[in-house]
């Protein structure tokens, strides 16, 4: 398959891994920011190819994992209201809230439907003017423009029965948090390729300079990741801390200005709570007041929910790269994909689920 197989070529991958081995003289700890990158690393066993002194830790970049409990609870409450059609991407349905999940809400009678795009939800709203159609708008900067576009269209068309429960988070504030932590171990980042396709790389240059940390924006195939790792190690060995772009077939310096415009039109930056991590300043997107008629939090007036999160899972440590999933006491025992204690065990992009699926005997 063209445009994929080139990036999964075992020979190229092994050559890159050998190059990393040749240029590495000191131990380095690298973090891949995105859940999709974590999934590829585990699926292809990339860690096994690298020299022992290059350590990979998994970042916070799985949107499912960092959606706060309260919001899942709100989603379940809204889905259970009469006359509501609640639409969502598939992998949000199994994420546990404080006591239930959307699959259980569906089984109990709520009209919960999996859609592949917010525009599908919009279509349901057009076809069923008598129903309130709510879309669960989750994700990083990658999904924000399409979600913004759905809200923008809803207002333009006067679709008063469409609203979005938005839970958007931003990558750079989370990286800043990790870098500011007194226990931070991360010395270089594989930057989020799809997020940068939208946003460009300027925000990352600021982080690289401020914290003197190299960031290589990387893709999602094994060869992409190995190339990004070799670029990062080269920078670290030479004492450089620059932003480089490995994923140039998708990412441009200035990102996608049209996508950023619709995001800015519909959303504004706000403080946001991250599941397992806590509130991070200016790390989320909320729907602007002028689009309030399409903001499910306003439409359904649920008010703030606060949930005490139970203790056993160490997801915050995992999401910040301080622990590996197998270092968790509950991993594979009390916490499995069947009975997830924390969100990283739920989505296939979650670090714990990726470990459990591909490497749990390691």
């Amino acid at each position, binding site marked *: 398959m063209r445009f994929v197989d080139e990036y999964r070529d075992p020979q190229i991958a092994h050559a890159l891994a050998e190059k990393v081995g040749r240029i590495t003289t000191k131990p380095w700890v690298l973090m891949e920011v995105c859940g999709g990158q974590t999934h590829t690393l585990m699926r292809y*066993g990339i860690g096994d190819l690298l020299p022992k002194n290059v350590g990979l830790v998994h970042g916070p970049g799985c949107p499912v994992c960092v959606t706060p409990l309260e919001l899942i609870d709100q989603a379940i409450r809204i889905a259970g209201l009469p006359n509501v059609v609640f639409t969502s991407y598939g992998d949000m349905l199994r994420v546990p809230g404080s006591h239930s999940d959307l699959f*259980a809400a569906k089984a109990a009678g709520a009209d919960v439907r999996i859609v592949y795009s917010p525009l599908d939800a919009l279509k349901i709203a057009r076809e069923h003017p008598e129903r309130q159609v709510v879309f669960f708008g989750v994700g990083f900067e990658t999904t924000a423009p399409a979600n913004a576009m759905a809200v923008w269209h809803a207002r333009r068309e006067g679709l008063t029965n469409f609203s979005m429960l938005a839970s958007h988070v931003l990558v750079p504030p989370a990286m800043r948090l990790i870098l500011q932590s007194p*226990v931070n171990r991360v010395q270089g980042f594989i930057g989020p390729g799809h997020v940068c396709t939208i946003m460009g790389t300027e925000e990352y240059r600021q982080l690289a300079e401020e914290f003197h940390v190299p960031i290589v924006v990387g893709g999602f195939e094994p060869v992409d990741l190995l190339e990004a790792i070799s670029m990062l190690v080269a920078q670290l060995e030479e004492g450089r801390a620059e932003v480089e772009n490995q994923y140039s077939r998708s990412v441009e310096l200035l990102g996608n200005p049209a996508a950023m415009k619709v995001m800015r039109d519909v959303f504004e930056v706000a403080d946001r709570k991250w599941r397992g991590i806590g509130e991070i300043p200016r790390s989320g997107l909320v729907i602007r007041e002028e689009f309030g008629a399409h903001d499910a939090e306003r439409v359904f007036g649920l008010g703030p929910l606060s949930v005490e999160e139970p203790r056993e*899972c160490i997801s915050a440590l995992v999401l910040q790269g301080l622990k590996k999933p197998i270092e968790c006491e509950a991993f594979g025992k009390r916490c499995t994909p069947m009975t997830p204690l924390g969100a990283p065990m739920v989505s296939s992009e979650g670090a714990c689920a990726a470990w459990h699926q591909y490497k749990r005997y390691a």
Partner: protein
Amino acid sequence: MPEVINNPAVFSCPAPIQERDRVVLGHGSGGRLSARLLRDIFLPLFSNPVLDRLEDQAVVEIGGSRLAFTTDTFVVKPLFFPGGNIGSLAVHGTVNDLAMGGATPLYLSAGFIIEEGFPLETLEQLAASMGEAAREAGVTIVTGDTKVVERGKGDGVFINTTGIGVVPPGVCLSASKARPGDLVILSGTIGDHGTAIMASREGLEFETTIVSDSAALHHLVADMLGVSYNIRCLRDPTRGGLSSTLNEIAEQSKVSIEIEEKRIPVRDEVRGACELLGLDPLYVANEGKLVAIVAPEAADDILDAMRRNARGEDAAIIGVVGADRAGMVTMRTAFGSTRIVDLLPGDQLPRIC
């Protein structure tokens, strides 16, 4: 800065959903939840030596003959898809469950649960497909039933088929008979049926040329048994895909199975569709493929016989049965690394990004 960063002791996590008190869709996925439904509800209540073997078909002895007996219910949506429809699928599915026991399929029943308002013309089309599929497979539909439910209480039509066949003397296939050193043969490309269904499902609407592989496999099985009885087990990897089938065999035989990624045939179109949807072909359903666990000395003859049959022309040896890590299926990736091929908890969920 959040407190957690300086004080990891306050890290916290959501409570698990340990047990479900209602059926969720994942219970029908063929993955772990389905297995739980069997283990927790049905097996303890129905337990007997035939059922407890957990084969795709029951083999019972009546008057000196060994009969294979099986039932399957079809709820596929959409009702018509490239390469077939719910009617032809209902025949192939049950014929194949009999064939996986090495049986010659003979008779089928057909039960219909029809929703009020369902077009008679469509019903006739489906019945015609069933009739044709049965004739092609050489089985006879000898009994049936129809029920009509109120509009909104069904989804167009659901079809149940039950089948009976005869198992030749000396043939004894079981998912518990795999042993270390045996080889794993796959009869052809995986993921065709599931991706054809997904691609024609409302809301996706991408154009592809992928066609379901829905087909009866008993002639292929007969060809295989024609060259060797050294076949331990046959299974058709339907819902849950190749991974679920291999996990079931590994668990029931208390062995490990290692497969090799580059030996597993997958059509380019199917790989492309799975890339788009964020799915893994290992977990996607097939309706015209089988997995055979065979003695190593018989593998070449069986493979040759399979490749001479149109239903097995892409057949390949994809792996080997091992002794350590009983119950676990692993895969050598194209990169030379090894990863687990696990059962999914429920359905594969399309990913956010």
